């Protein structure tokens, strides 16, 4: 027994020492679904191919959990080599606190400012003139995914905007179809509400509220409309929606059990994996509005400061690899997202992706998501509010709007 314990201890010690050698870079991310896994493998493979350095994968399910782990470990003095965040203000305290590796020299020598577009996605990485993160892809929330057979079965045309959809929802219900598919997680509810809100506010209203903190607009009729629409969408959901993940929800649309889901363009990957054809089996409706706007969210990687110069060199190599045009093409094709640079071969893009690219070409229809303007605390408050509105039919439109105004008024 004792002998066994000694051997076991030695074995773990050995394992430990091989797992952590100088040029291992541990990467925390939350890409765990099928398409996401394929995409992150591109990074891992390309990085390992660069030389001796190794990509050590730490996938943590759920963005919030992964971000929490990174924040806590960095604060606790055991930072990972690299970590995923969203294009937002989620990590600004780490940058301000001087805990992140300064990528400015690399960015300047490679000319990131020249090829990364839109410029706004690199702006979130910049604090006091230094660049602390690498944007790797662009995602937009403002899409509705519709099942063409479901709408045909109910005998109603595909909607062009949310009002049309709500008008046709009772017919879908009569045909035994779940009109509106959504998973009851706070981020899905909050995201869908953001889309509804933007469809009512437009770019000017959106910027007035989140960028300029204009409380009159926040208390205005557009927001009230959005809340009303949101409340009526709730009445067209199924009872299984609580706790359902986004990809299970997308699957309902894929199987034509549900008619429509509001979800970011990462949902396209699920349709592709299921072998569905855009325009035939499913339709992607940008906006959903006649005059759609898209935000340029997405993911970034940041590199917490390390003591070991070998790891630091590997971190810089990884950052450079992530914006390499060829890696960008491979990664984004697998992920279903748009690359962060223009000079990338997107010949594999499907119709939905092309429609998105077309919209993004017009700067007037590109917006910055609320999370660029508000910090995570305020974003969380709005998510809580929309989640409460979602589950509590007694919360009136007026009260919900008043609380929204309060959040915007006190937001940092």
């Amino acid at each position, binding site marked *: 027994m004792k002998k066994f314990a000694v051997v076991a201890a030695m074995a773990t010690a050995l394992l430990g020492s091989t797992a952590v050698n100088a040029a291992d870079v541990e990467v925390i991310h939350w890409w765990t679904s099928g398409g996401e896994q394929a995409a992150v493998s591109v990074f891992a493979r390309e990085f390992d191919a660069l030389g001796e350095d190794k990509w050590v994968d730490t996938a943590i399910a759920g963005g*919030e959990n992964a*971000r*929490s782990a990174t*924040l*806590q470990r960095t*604060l606790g003095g055991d930072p990972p080599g690299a970590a995923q965040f969203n294009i937002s203000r*989620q990590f600004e*305290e*780490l940058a301000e*606190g001087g805990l992140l590796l300064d990528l400015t020299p690399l960015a300047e020598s490679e000319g990131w400012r020249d090829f990364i577009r839109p410029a706004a996605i690199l702006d979130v990485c910049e604090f006091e003139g230094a660049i602390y993160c690498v944007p790797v892809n662009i995602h937009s929330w403002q899409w509705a995914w519709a099942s063409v057979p479901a709408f045909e079965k109910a005998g109603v045309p595909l909607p062009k905007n949310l009002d049309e959809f709500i008008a046709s929802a009772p017919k879908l219900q009569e045909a035994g179809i779940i009109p509106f598919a959504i998973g*009851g*997680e*706070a981020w899905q*509810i909050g995201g869908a509400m953001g889309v509804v809100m933007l469809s009512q506010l437009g770019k000017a209203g959106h910027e007035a509220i989140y960028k300029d903190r204009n409380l009159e607009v926040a208390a205005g009729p557009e927001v009230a409309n959005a809340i009303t629409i949101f409340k009526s969408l709730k009445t067209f959901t199924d*009872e*299984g*929606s*609580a*706790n359902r993940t986004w990809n299970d929800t997308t699957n309902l649309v894929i199987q034509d059990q549900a008619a429509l889901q509001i979800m970011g363009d990462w949902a396209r990957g699920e349709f592709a994996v299921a072998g569905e054809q855009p325009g035939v089996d499913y339709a992607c409706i940008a906006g959903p509005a006649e005059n759609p706007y898209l935000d340029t969210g997405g993911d970034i990687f940041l590199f917490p400061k390390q003591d070991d110069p070998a790891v630091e060199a590997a971190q810089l190599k990884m950052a450079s690899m992530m914006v390499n045009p060829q890696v960008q093409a491979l990664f984004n094709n697998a992920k279903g997202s748009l690359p962060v640079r223009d000079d990338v071969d997107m010949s594999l893009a499907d119709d939905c992706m092309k429609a998105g690219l077309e919209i993004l070409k017009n700067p007037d229809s590109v917006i910055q998501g609320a999370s660029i303007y508000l*910090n*995570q*605390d305020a974003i*969380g*408050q709005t998510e*809580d*509010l929309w*989640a*409460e*509105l*979602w*589950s*509590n039919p007694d919360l009136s439109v007026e009260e919900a709007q008043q*609380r929204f105004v309060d959040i915007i008024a*006190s937001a940092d």
Partner: protein
Amino acid sequence: MAQLATAKEDGAAARPAAGSSGRKPFRLSTLMSIVGTMPMIATAVGVFFICIIYSFVLSFTNSRIFPAFGADNFVGTDQYARLWSTGRWLVSVNNIWFFGLLSIVANMTAGYLLAVFMDQRIKQEDLFRSIFLYPFAMSLVITGLVWRWILDPNYGIQATVRGWGFEDFAFAPLVNSGTAIYGLVVAGIWNGVGVTMAIMLAGLRGVDGEIWKAAKIDGIPTWKTYLFIVLPMMKGALLTAFILQCVGVVRVYDLIVAMTQGGPGISTQMPAVFVIQHITDRSNVGLGMAAATMMLLPVIVLLGLQVFVQWRANRVKENA
């Protein structure tokens, strides 16, 4: 914990001093006991006392991820004002009282009944005890996940019963914001009832056999003996079980994360989830600490009450 440890220390130091006015013989055993309790004292003071004070002070700042103690970081009771005007916090507080009362009452009752059942000199007692205790050995995350599946309308109890032909059968508490908390209570009971039973059973077995004989001779029915004679005699076991339950309720976190993630909407949010979320992802340590301080408040009141009751009892004993 801290109080107990320091009280013992004081007593040990005071006694020899009172015994001899001049030089006292320093005993090795005294030194050893001081050395022996040092780690405990250090832990109690360091972990409990200092950390609690630290959190308390943090709750008056606008700290985000990093603790910030600058002059302009102190915002007074702003965090508390925001906390008590936050809908989600109010829902959390309501939930914990509701969940706590319901699950403690149910656990204590069911635990006692199970213990009485086990006390009937049944065959296979060891087997049953293991079965009832088993859920407690499992992580609350597993418990939560299993119950989430059982209560899921698409593949749990509801789907099964409907599959038998009862098309209108509806039993899916977790999907409705009004009933989700009952689903949590069920899982909580399943997890906690076994250990309550084990403690109560130990209490039952601790009761002197003579009492039973006396009750038999007096012709008191068995159920009355259990309820009015034996139950009051096992105060210790009851208190232990009760305190264990209370601790479990105050820190309930993993069950929520695994079962509902606070949903539908925010209807099953709990204070611990609020605290953890605000000091991590939401990057608002100040607010999180204000919430943590509010969580500590009922615990302090309970502890104070217990100390007071003990003090009263000692006084009565001394006077008698």
